[in-house]
């Protein structure tokens, strides 16, 4: 799976599942950058075949509807959609 890493403050394992065409995914990514947090992201629409299926399985583990953006923190907590307040709070910002 193609995962891009963004450097920043370590706030645990932060993984963003996004779509390259989605405006709300872009806003979520911008917010994480603004908060200066280290995170990984992948554009699920750009993955192919098995890789895309595996990524979707991961997303669905945390978000049954399989929608985007899905932000997974420490393989435990997830925030679905561009929920600015929740995202800021999750990182104590």
């Amino acid at each position, binding site marked *: 799976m193609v995962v891009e890493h963004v450097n920043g403050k370590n706030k645990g394992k932060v993984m963003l599942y996004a779509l390259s065409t989605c405006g709300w995914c872009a806003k979520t990514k911008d917010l994480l950058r603004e908060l200066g947090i280290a995170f990984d992201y992948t554009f699920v629409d750009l993955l192919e075949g098995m890789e895309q299926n595996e990524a979707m399985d991961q997303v669905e583990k945390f978000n049954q*509807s399989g929608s985007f953006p899905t932000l997974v923190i420490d393989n435990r907590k997830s925030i679905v959609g561009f929920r600015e307040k929740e995202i800021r709070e999750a990182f104590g910002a």
Partner: protein
Amino acid sequence: MNDAGVREQDVDRTYETLVKDATDGGYRLNPDAEFVKNLICGLLKNEQRYGYRACPCRLASGKKEEDLDIICPCDYRDSDLEEHGACYCALYVNEAIADGSRKVAPVPERRPPRSERGRKKDAAVRTITPGMAPIFSLSLPVWRCKVCGYLCAREQPPGICPICKAKKDRFERFA
């Protein structure tokens, strides 16, 4: 040409068309033109990739018959506008948001999850078979546009919805 490989002039042209079609049909687009143009860029990117304008905020399968419900405007737009004031990706919004008196909030996904999709097989366009006739007898079948709800009684659905311009494959047998 931008990062997504979509030409700026195509985005601008599509923007003009969408604004006109929305206004003609009684809909409103998100007042944030830059946000809308980004969505349009996604729509055009999907048109390049898949051959149809799948919702930029949802993962398309690339198989048209599985993605018919998320071709923009999607089957869920009107319900989401009603309940949340915006469609799933917030391309279409209600009056209050269009006028700036209310803000867009995230819209939860209404589309069934992968595992439940296609369980209820309802072919978008079915030809009439004798056994399908309802108890009360209509002289013609009634077709419903899944995008805007337009109904018409005729042998086959129209090639293009006269109200919202959705294509024939977005119609379902209603009665």
